[in-house]
């Protein structure tokens, strides 16, 4: 019993000495100050593509997230089918496409974030590399700080759509 408590105490101490949780493939480290590979599939108002620009709620969120990581975004267009295959093959870091929590793609070898925005029955999420938990935690913490601005972003891009 004593040994067990000592074991628990030691483990919790150990866990606090290092950044925790960590990525098996160091995605967060690799992306910071480098390149963030984001696959996108058009789905207004989340992802809007015009002849000369890429806009939308999730595009705006990604741009700010990349800025915080001092990373450049490389945008990779595709159908959801292609993008999720690439994400499962670990050729992308993330996929945005106005995905909801009930997306059938979650059965693939990918991860999804917690719900970052909820409207009615729809719970919006982003797709991310499977098992890169430090990267996932960084993204989820960022999305949480934006929680209160997302509604106005959605309205902004819905109006944009109408024009």
């Amino acid at each position, binding site marked *: 019993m004593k040994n067990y408590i000592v074991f628990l105490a030691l483990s919790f101490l150990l866990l606090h000495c290092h950044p925790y949780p960590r990525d098996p493939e160091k995605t967060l480290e690799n992306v910071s100050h480098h390149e963030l590979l984001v696959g996108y599939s058009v789905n207004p108002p989340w992802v809007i593509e015009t002849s000369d620009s890429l806009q939308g709620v999730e595009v705006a969120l990604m741009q700010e997230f990349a800025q915080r990581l001092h990373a450049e975004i490389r945008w990779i267009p595709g159908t959801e089918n292609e993008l999720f295959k690439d994400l499962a093959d670990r050729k992308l870091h993330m996929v945005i496409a106005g995905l909801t929590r009930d997306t059938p793609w979650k059965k693939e070898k990918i991860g999804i974030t917690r719900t970052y925005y909820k409207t009615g029955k729809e719970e919006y999420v982003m797709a991310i590399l499977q098992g890169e*938990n*430090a990267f996932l935690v960084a993204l989820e913490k960022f999305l949480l700080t934006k929680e209160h601005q997302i509604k106005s972003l959605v309205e902004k891009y819905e109006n944009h759509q109408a024009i």
Partner: protein
Amino acid sequence: MKITKQFEFPKALLPKYKKAKRIEIISIAYLISTALLMYITMSGSQTMKTAWVEDMLSLIPAISFLITTKIFNKAPNEQFPFGYHRVSSIAYLCSSLALFTVGGLLLIDAILALVRQEHPTIGTVVIFGQPIWMGYLMMLVLVYATIPAIFLGKVKMPLAEKLHEKNLYADAKMNKADWMTAVASIIGVAGIGLGWWWTDAIAAAIISADILHDGYVNLREATYDMLDQAPKTIDDQDIHPIVDQVKQVLEGQDWVKKAEVRLREDGHVFFGEGFIVPQHTDHLLSHINQGVEAVYQLDWKIHDFHITIVDQLPEQPKEKNKG
């Protein structure tokens, strides 16, 4: 139809029996609470899923003990002349089969997760506006799943031996499996946090192999019970010393030339016969009655015992098949 007498535990053991029932109700409440907490915090971890299923499974012996207490106290009748004692053996067979099957399924699941290189994805949960990594919560729940289980198991073990109650014994062992599972799971989840995706599936595989093993051992014992094997002690599964004691008591009677006994377990109690080659047949009826009484004095577990007079005993097979 000769009907056996109604009896399950002697008066002296009744407080122990009541205590066992109380402990089992506490166990069930505690196990349900840990199962709920585990379900809430499970997210993408194979280990947590395995620990959760293990926790749900460990409800079975406790629940089946409580259900059987409702049944085995019923009075024997024309239709069930041997009484309802054996309902515990049926419950024991069911719970060990559940252990065995689920252990196997979980082991396959864990191995598949390893082969497919599924990386457990564990994100944050927001509590009072603060994002917290779910892994921390999992570890907290798992700590909650260990400490009370250790004590519950320690209380149940001696009760099970006193009452000769196999479901209770299986349950005490399950509590041990519970906390060992939780410790393995803590290591698995802590490993995920260190960036070792495989600790999760390996911890899950170890736990499920342990469940499978427990299931196998108990399933074997339960099947042997149903096959009317000789009474065994509840812990080390040796032939119960009562078998030899009964034989000695019979051979100690001065009218007995040779004696042999055959006992079987029906739940907590033993049924059986003594086969006696008498020295002489004077006062045979009263001798038989004295013999039966002397055997009943040995132990409360001997519930229904008869003496048969034979002119010779068959050769005993010397090899004990321990199985």
